[in-house]
Structure formats: structure tokens, C-alpha cells
């Protein structure tokens, strides 16, 4: 058997016959890695995950999870995967333990085994003390951990995490990452996650696919992606905002110039050497530099490089918006 746990070929989803959410994407996820889908809101991340977990039928193309066809072998796929959805899906009226047992029942796990596993999982996500409290009393972080525990009850080979830290504060987010790492080490699982937080992708994922407008723009390890930019980035602003793109191109070592609003992003091999040259040549032409920033490539740069804009206004479906708002609201409620 090949080492790839998930293989997607030409996976496509078109909503209402004209809205292409996912556009012929190909990728594969290796055994035991954390694979991240990174992209702005509305890029098609959740749609992709929903196809892989068999909630949505692909319009075209196909994918397999652990060798099971996602369009034909629904039940086999569902049986071997764990899902931690974007929303808090636990039933608020039930206790934490009851929720986990309910999940176990849905997988047909016998009661004795379920109880054993539930205790283990509660310990793992440190909810043992709260297991008999109603979920409505849980904080956002606790709910997320409960979702993790529920997603693991069937000992999945692959765990799907959709925006695992949406709406959480920085501390809780960092703690959640710790749990995810722990899970991966403890159970030797393959993880597929989506996120729009760059630092999350950078710190958690072994490999990242940047997705935008339903297409995968680039795939690689965070390091590879950073190196792919081929050097440092000089960001500078000029007084009166003149158009000097041509001038930059004439400078040696300048690889690429992009104008973003009123600032320029200049890609260079070695920023420390080239930056003085740039300033020098600008001054010679009579331009005044008002601001200059030299950055070593971070995932942020990679992201902007491939998705273009820093902030994205997207028109999302009302339903997505509502559920997201509700998730955020509940995360912050207590």
C-alpha cells in the first residue's frame, strides 16, 4: 500500500451550478503528517474538508481516504476518520461525558469499551473534573477540547480539524496546539487541518497547501515555502507615492517588485546588502523614502506572495456566516 493516506484527484465542488468553491485540486497527504490547508475566508477550505469527510458529494473528480473512495464507500470512510468541526457541535444540554458516550454509540462502540476510552480521552484533554457538568457551562477552550475528545473516540487513523482554534484567545489557542501535537504523538495519527491563522500553520503543520479561489496555489513544508520566496523582502514607502517600479527593476539583485496600496514589496537575494543600494538610487533620482522595513521571509510573506492581498472581503454564504458567528459568540460567551 502506498504511503499516502489521502489522495485527491481533480476534486471539484460547484454550488448551485455556478459558484465554484473548489476547483480541480490535486494533493496527497502522507502517513503520519499534519497537513494544513491555509487560505483566506471563502477559499474553499471547509468545502474541501466536507467533501473528504463525506458531507458533500464532489461535483467532479474524486478522492480516497485510507484507500476508501469518498463518493462510493461513505460508511467505510466515516468509520476510520475522526472529525473536529469548525462549530461547537456538542449537545449543550448533556454533560461532557454523555456527549462522548453519544459519539461512541454513533460508531457502534460497545458500552464497556466506550467508557474506558472516554475516561482516557477526558484525561488526555484534561476535562476529567468537568465530565459531569453540562456542556453549556464550558468555556470555549474546554468545548474545543471536548470536540477533540469526541473526534477521537473511534480511534481514527485520520483526524480532520476544521479551523481548530477559531474564536479562541491566544493562550487557549496555544494550549490547543499542544493538545493537537500530543494527540499526534500519542496516537500516531495523520492530521488534516484547515486554518487561516498563519502562525498556526507554521507551528503545527508538517506540510502546507495554500489555497485561494478554490485552487491550490502551492504545496510544501513551511521551510520550503519560505525558501521558495528566494530571499528577503524590503517593504518601503515613498513620499508622494510616485511610480518607480521600473527604477527598482534596474537595480542589481532585485528579483521582483510588487506595489501594494502605497508601499512596494521588493524581493531581493540578500536584503542587508541590497537595501542601501535601493535607498541610494532612489535618493539620486530625488525621491524621499518615508518608511523602510526589511523582513526575512515568514509564512506571512509566503501567504501574501501567493494570495496577493492581505485582507480579503469575501461574500460568504449566509449560513456559513451565521454558524461562524454563533461559534465565535459561544467561544466568547464564558
Amino acid at each position, binding site marked *: 500500500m502506498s504511503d499516502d493516506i489521502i489522495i485527491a484527484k481533480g476534486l471539484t465542488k460547484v454550488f448551485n451550478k455556478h459558484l465554484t468553491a473548489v476547483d480541480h485540486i490535486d494533493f496527497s497527504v502522507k502517513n503520519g503528517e499534519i497537513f494544513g490547508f491555509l487560505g483566506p475566508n471563502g477559499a474553499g477550505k471547509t468545502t474541501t474538508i466536507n467533501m473528504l469527510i463525506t458531507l458533500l458529494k464532489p461535483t467532479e473528480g474524486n478522492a480516497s481516504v485510507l484507500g476508501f473512495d469518498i463518493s462510493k464507500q461513505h460508511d467505510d470512510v466515516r468509520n476510520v476518520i475522526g472529525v473536529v468541526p469548525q*462549530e461547537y457541535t456538542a449537545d449543550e444540554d448533556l454533560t461532557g461525558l454523555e456527549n462522548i458516550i453519544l459519539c461512541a454509540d*454513533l460508531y457502534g*462502540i460497545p458500552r464497556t469499551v466506550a467508557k474506558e476510552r472516554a475516561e482516557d480521552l477526558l484525561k488526555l484533554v484534561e476535562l476529567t473534573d468537568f465530565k459531569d457538568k453540562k456542556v453549556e457551562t464550558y468555556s470555549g477552550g474546554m468545548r474545543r477540547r471536548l470536540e477533540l475528545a469526541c473526534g477521537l473516540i*473511534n480511534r*481514527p487513523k485520520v483526524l480532520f480539524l476544521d479551523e481548530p482554534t477559531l474564536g479562541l484567545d491566544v493562550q487557549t489557542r496555544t494550549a490547543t496546539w499542544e493538545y493537537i501535537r500530543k494527540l499526534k504523538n500519542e496516537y500516531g495519527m495523520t492530521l488534516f487541518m484547515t486554518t487561516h491563522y498563519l502562525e498556526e500553520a507554521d507551528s503545527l503543520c508538517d506540510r502546507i497547501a495554500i489555497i485561494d479561489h478554490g485552487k491550490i496555489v502551492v504545496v510544501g513544508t513551511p521551510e520550503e515555502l519560505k525558501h521558495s520566496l528566494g530571499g528577503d523582502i524590503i517593504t518601503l514607502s515613498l513620499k508622494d507615492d510616485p511610480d518607480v517600479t521600473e527604477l527598482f527593476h534596474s537595480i542589481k539583485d532585485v528579483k521582483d517588485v510588487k506595489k501594494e496600496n502605497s508601499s512596494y514589496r521588493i524581493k531581493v537575494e540578500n536584503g542587508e546588502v541590497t537595501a542601501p543600494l535601493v535607498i541610494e538610487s532612489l535618493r539620486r533620482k530625488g525621491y524621499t523614502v518615508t518608511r523602510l522595513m526589511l523582513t526575512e521571509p515568514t509564512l506571512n510573506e509566503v501567504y501574501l506572495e501567493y494570495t496577493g492581498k492581505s485582507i480579503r472581503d469575501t461574500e460568504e454564504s449566509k449560513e456559513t456566516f*451565521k454558524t461562524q458567528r454563533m461559534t465565535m459568540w459561544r467561544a466568547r460567551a464564558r
Partner: protein
Amino acid sequence: MSKMNEYHPSKFHGIWALTKRELKKWLKEPIILLMAILQPILWMGLFGKAMNIDNMFASANFGNINMPNLTLPGSYATPPVTGYITIPGSQISAMFQQALANIGPNAMQNIFGVKDYFSYMSVGMISFIVMFTTMFSGMSIVWDRRLGFLNKVLSTPVSRGAIIFSKVLNAGLRSMFQATIILILAVIFGLQVSSTFTPLNIFGVYAAIFLLSVGLSSVFLALALRSTRQETQMAIVNLINLPLMFASNSLFPISMMPDWIQVIVRVNPVSYLTDALRQLVILPLDSSLLMFDLTYLSIFAVVFSFIGIALSWRFLTK
């Protein structure tokens, strides 16, 4: 190292797990149960007792009838006498009152089939309970969708049909439980059980309630499958419930209604539940009528639960 999940859920297992969840939620909120029971009690009090229809025909309502003395020629009497005979007015009014006293119950008996309206309408309240309980099963799937619970369940190997069926089953069990309370209360408040009633009839009562619950909740669930807003669902349900309630025999007998409403009443499954319950509890049992009612309810339940489950296969995966 993790192993593959070695267990597979059976159909029954999934249905039971989800039904248990619903029942647990229900038991944890006794206030919902209380509300669900209070409403028909209010109806029984305000409609059954306050609007006391059988009293409208009671003799006292005709006031004191003061009859004058009646003087007749002696030839009217048998055998004829000469001169005149006089019947005292008080005696005539006494006879009149007595006649009127019989008209009331007779009219009730002829129109409603029983002598008191309270018995008649409190049985109708059981249908009311079933309608409102099943209505909420439709609402609950909208909530599950809104909160993401539905998506989670859909990503587990549990059968799609089980998701719908657990809600149907839940509605049935709840209706039966609430109906029991209402029936007991009705008896305490003065429901008169017919002479043909035996404890065995209770099984028939439950069967009829369960059948209508299955059918109606399938209808409401089918309507709610694609809905994402409770408001829409609420509006639809209200629109349906009003005619279901009033174009049925729950509160008034069919014979008093205009022809075109009678047509609706005759297809309305609620009428068949009400009639079956009346046959079993307050009327002298007519087995052939009861069999017809139960058959109609069974067909309704089977047809709509199949439609519901078929639609759930179609619509729960996009």
C-alpha cells in the same frame, strides 16, 4: 499505535443512541414537559368547562316559565263533562320544564355522541398534544443543523435514516407519555368513560397515538430537512396546525360543519386519531369503525415515514 475502528454501528444501535439523546434532553428540561401539558389543560378548562355547551340546553336556561291557567270546554275531556275544566298553570310549566330537561341531553347525545361536552373535547386534546409534540421534532432538526450537531452526526457512520427515525420515535414516545397525563387529568376533572371501556383499550389508545405521531412528525421533519431558519419552520408549522386542529373532529362533530370542510376533515389524519380514541374511551365501541380508523392511521404513518426517510437520504447529503 492506533487500530482501525473495529466496530460498526447497527441500525438499531444508532436509532437508539440518538433517541436516548433526545429523551435525555427532554427529561433534563421538565419545564418543557410542564408547558406541553399546561396548554391542553388550559384548553380543557377554558374550552371544555367554561364554554359549557351541554348546559346551553339545560332547562334552567329557559327561565321561569309562568303558564297561565288553561280553561277548556268540558267536551275536550274524556269522558266529556258539561261546563269547563281548568288545568292549573303551575302544572303545565312543570311538564314543560321536564320535557326541556330531556331535550338537552338528547341533543348532546345526537350531535356529539356523548352527554357531556367535556368528555368529548378532552379526548380531542390528545390529538392536540400529538400535533404540538410532533411539530417540535421538526423544529429540533433545524436546531441541530444550526448548531452543527447534525453535521457531526452526518460525519459518523450512523445511518441517515436513523437520524430521522430517532426523531420520529422520540415524538411518538413523548406524545404517548403526555397523552397519558392528560387522560388521567381528564378523568379526574370529570371525563366519563364509556361502558365498553376495558384496560385493554389502553393499548389501542397508545397504538393510535403512536401511529399519528409517526406520520405527523415525518411530515414536519420532511418539511424541515432543508430549512436553516427556525422562523421559517415556525411559520410553516403554524400554518399547518391551525387547519389540522379545526378542520377535524377534535372540538366539534363533523355533522355540524359545512360540506366543503367535511371533505377536509375526512382526509385529515387527526380526525381519525380523535375518532379512534373516542371509540376506545368514551363511546360505545364500534369495532369496525375503530378498525377503519387504525388502518387509516397506519397507512398515513407508513407512507409518510417512508417519504421522510427517502427525503433524508436525498437531502442530508448535498
